[in-house]
């Protein structure tokens, strides 16, 4: 796969005139078209740490889902690592989600019936590794994230911060180029939020993983190097800033 060997000048993500509209059932069977994203143009390079901000309902999650190949745009083009995702088959998209992208959600989204260890190991299973090998990898990763003693806990036996660390470990386990985090600190207290953000910062700086993060809080956004602001489905601000 050519996913991981990027040429230096090629952006990791290139989005052109991307639009997203939802068809809603209106009165008298007249479908209502509800447009959520308007003409989004974006270039993101490998190793960037980006925060997306904006009011509730401005389309941040919608954009993240499209960037993560979980959703498809209504029009416009999206190249991920040089490949136009519109031309990828379902299996290729699954492969991209498995190998190139790591998701971190606000609600953690761990598999409830599995231990922390198996949650982290699952993406490796989908990548074709056997269970024993995958658990070994997952254990190493959990130990690195400081969860070495919680490997056999089920999600409901972990605190919010611990669950989010498990989710981040799961996102990292296949060594993706890109981590998409939709309000990863939304359900956490500020102390834990900052711990999680420090973890992201380290991943970005030490391992060069690109991170796109959605947040409502300025101090969380300040960990990022670039800030994109959305309003009513349009990018109204896109600026680089110095790290604090």
């Amino acid at each position, binding site marked *: 796969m050519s996913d991981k060997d990027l040429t230096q000048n090629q952006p990791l993500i290139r989005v052109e005139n991307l639009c997203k509209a939802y068809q809603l059932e209106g009165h008298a069977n007249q479908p209502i078209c509800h447009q959520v994203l308007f003409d989004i143009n974006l270039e993101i390079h490998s190793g960037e740490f980006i925060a997306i901000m904006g009011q509730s309902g401005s389309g941040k999650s919608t954009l993240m889902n499209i960037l*993560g*190949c*979980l959703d498809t745009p209504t029009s416009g083009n999206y190249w991920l690592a040089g490949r136009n995702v519109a031309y990828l088959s379902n299996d290729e998209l*699954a*492969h991209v*989600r*498995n190998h190139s992208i790591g*998701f971190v959600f606000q609600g953690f989204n761990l598999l*409830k019936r599995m231990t922390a260890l198996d949650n982290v190991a699952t993406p490796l299973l989908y990548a074709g590794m056997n269970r024993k090998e995958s658990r070994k990898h997952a254990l190493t990763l959990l130990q690195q994230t400081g969860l070495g003693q919680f490997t056999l806990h089920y999600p409901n036996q972990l605190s919010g911060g611990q669950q989010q660390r498990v989710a981040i470990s799961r996102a990292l386990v296949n060594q993706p180029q890109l981590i998409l985090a939709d309000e990863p600190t939304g359900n956490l207290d500020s102390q834990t939020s900052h711990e999680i953000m420090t973890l992201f910062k380290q991943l970005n700086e030490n391992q060069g993983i690109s991170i796109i993060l959605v947040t409502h809080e300025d101090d969380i956004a300040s960990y990022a190097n670039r800030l994109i602001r959305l309003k009513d489905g349009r990018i109204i601000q896109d600026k680089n800033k110095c790290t604090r």
Partner: protein
Amino acid sequence: MNLLTIIGEAFQALRVNRLRTGLTMLGMIIGVAAVVLMLSIGQGAQIQINNTIASMGSHLLLVLPGATSSGGLRFGSGTVKTLTAGDAQAIAELPSVEAAAPVVSGIAQLNYGANNWSTTITGTTPDYFSVGNWLIESGSIFSEADLRSATRVAVLGKVTAENLFGNEDPTGKTFRIANKPFLVVGVLAAKGQSLSGRDQDDNVLIPLTTAQRQILGNQFPGSIGHMLVQGKSADMMEEAEMEITRLLRQRHRISDRMENDFTVRNLTAIAAVASTTAKVMAWMLGAIASISLLVGGIGIMNIMLVSVTERTREIGIRMAIGASHRAILTQFLLEALMICILGGLTGAVLGIGSAWMISQIVDMPVVITLSMIGLAFAFVAIIGIFFGFYPANKAASLKPVEALRYE
């Protein structure tokens, strides 16, 4: 994801909902147990019938006196005594006929010491034993000489011998038929029930002449009750039937426009019909039982659909971390299949167990063949795939965002 891992995941998912899995499986267990049980009982009955047919003797014709109709007046066959021992002798000479045994019969009282027993007395010739496929257990059959001189000798059926003599060996002993002393020369090996359900082992066989002259008073002297004829081979049966008809019409001087005063029946053909009927019955029982398998299959589909709906979010998460369409499909399909196969296994064991128990209780042969179990299993697997596919495909075709957003 490799198959072994998916099997593990499916097993895990089934274990979480133990009660639900168990109840769904129960449908399969009952279905498979019913199919296995019904097929084994059906095949057992079939084998029993085939054994009876085999014991009856092969390629048999039954010749009964009496016309089926006569000049507008209809009689049942056997109502008029028109057959004689001479007819039997003549028939035995026919090229397509191996042997012919004339038979007269009636009920009489038997006595031995303090024991008495009432049963059918059959007067016949020594040929009867070979034609009817009778085997001797002890002693011997009576001879042509006994027949010629109307000796008072008897061969006893197994049940009669037991009832009259208890544990004693009857051979060589003297007992009384209708107060006349008879010498027991042999005892027949047991045969069991006939196709019509009559106990064939409760009988006494004596020479035809002895029966005609000394035991069964007869209004038409020399006439016989019926005749058992054995054809030369299975494919000569129709020929034999025709030759017998032609010969008897000639002997009885029946003009061309008159109807027969006798009836010829192909017993082997009747037996073949009985055998086929038993076979059809066996399959029908199995088919009826398999309806419960079908119902069980629908139960599986129902539960799998509920499971897919319940786990929509889980499916979304799995897709987000890289599960392909095929991985999700296989996972849910395997869950359905595992319910089927585990249920099928338990059901097969249960079916075999109860078939064995029934065979012990009612003393009936019960047949359990590997092919039968194989058939039930193939059926179960097909049901699992058929009813599991729709829910599994539904799960695998979910859109990742929608599945993730599902509450």
